[in-house]
């Protein structure tokens, strides 16, 4: 039994819409999950407008990566995973000792640098299988927004520490991987 061409074309269009709708719903869920995961970094140490922008940016980047798929999705997933530690570290420190958070933030970039090192290692390891601009742009955007949540209280020095930490943590892993291949 043959199905007429217009019916098959209509069905194909409906199937494509269903696919895109499914991806969009998945993107909303993933963006919401990312925001919920990063909320402690915003709520505990850092309730400023810029932090709100970073929180929203993080959720949007993760959702957009999921919607677009391929390298962008892999990159934002890796970036979110890597960025969660620098985002939540100050909140965790404050939960342990409320004064320590303020002290560490005001005394220099060390908290952000420590989070950056962990993020660099994670990112470099995850980036082993997926190279290219889509992966790295997605990963750095997600990492940037997430990590900024934790580093805003430390100011510019905190961001410098974060960047240095990412380089220090990620470069050896990337170099060793390059040497192994």
């Amino acid at each position, binding site marked *: 039994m043959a199905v007429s061409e217009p019916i098959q074309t209509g069905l194909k269009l409906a199937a494509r819409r*269903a696919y895109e709708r*499914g991806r969009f719903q998945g993107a909303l869920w993933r963006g919401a999950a990312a925001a919920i995961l990063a909320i402690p970094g915003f709520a505990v140490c850092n309730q400023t407008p810029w932090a709100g922008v970073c929180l929203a940016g993080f959720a949007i980047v993760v959702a957009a990566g999921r919607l677009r798929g*391929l390298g962008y999705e892999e990159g934002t997933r890796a970036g979110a995973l890597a960025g969660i530690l620098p985002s939540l570290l100050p909140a965790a420190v404050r939960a342990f000792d409320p004064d320590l958070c303020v002290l560490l933030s005001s005394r220099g970039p060390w908290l952000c640098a420590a989070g950056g090192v962990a993020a660099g290692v994670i990112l470099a390891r995850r980036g082993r299988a997926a190279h290219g601009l889509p992966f790295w742009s997605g990963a750095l955007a997600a990492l940037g927004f997430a990590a900024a949540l934790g580093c805003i209280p430390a100011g510019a020095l905190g961001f410098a520490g974060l960047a240095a930490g990412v380089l220090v943590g990620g470069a050896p892993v990337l170099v060793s991987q390059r040497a192994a291949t």
Partner: protein
Amino acid sequence: MASGERGALQEELTALARGDRAAFDPVFRRLWPLLRGFAGRFLPLEEADDVAQEALLRVFARSSEFDVRRDALSWVLSIAAWQIRTHRARIRRRREDSSDAAAERPDGGPSPEATVLARSLNAALDRALAQLPAADAATLIAYARGERPDLPGPTFRKRVERALARLRARWRIDHGSL
């Protein structure tokens, strides 16, 4: 499905799950005949196509959730099987609802008692008419049907009155009252 095709479906669905839109056309071309055939094995032809379409849309809507470690063909057919089960349940419910409604619905007709009473009255009237002269019975039947014989109006009216008077008299004799 041959193992080569099965492997190709696995690769294409994996690509689609990762967001590779280029895999959409090959997956569509592979899945549509597969799902139609699968639904056709369990449902009548006219229902099979509808269910296959619903299953196809559901597969595409959920393809981003596809776990690439799973077997793609089994995953697709499990969605189709669920859709077939849902369709059958829906049909069964609809049949049950319609039979319940038919049992509850009043048909607007007379009750059995009224039908029996009307039937016995008609029989009694037929008997009374049969006992009248043939010309009177014909006049009353024509009057009841709204027919007008080829007579002047006053003449016909008088004949009707006379026939009715005789019918009443006959009825009183047989049944005691009118």
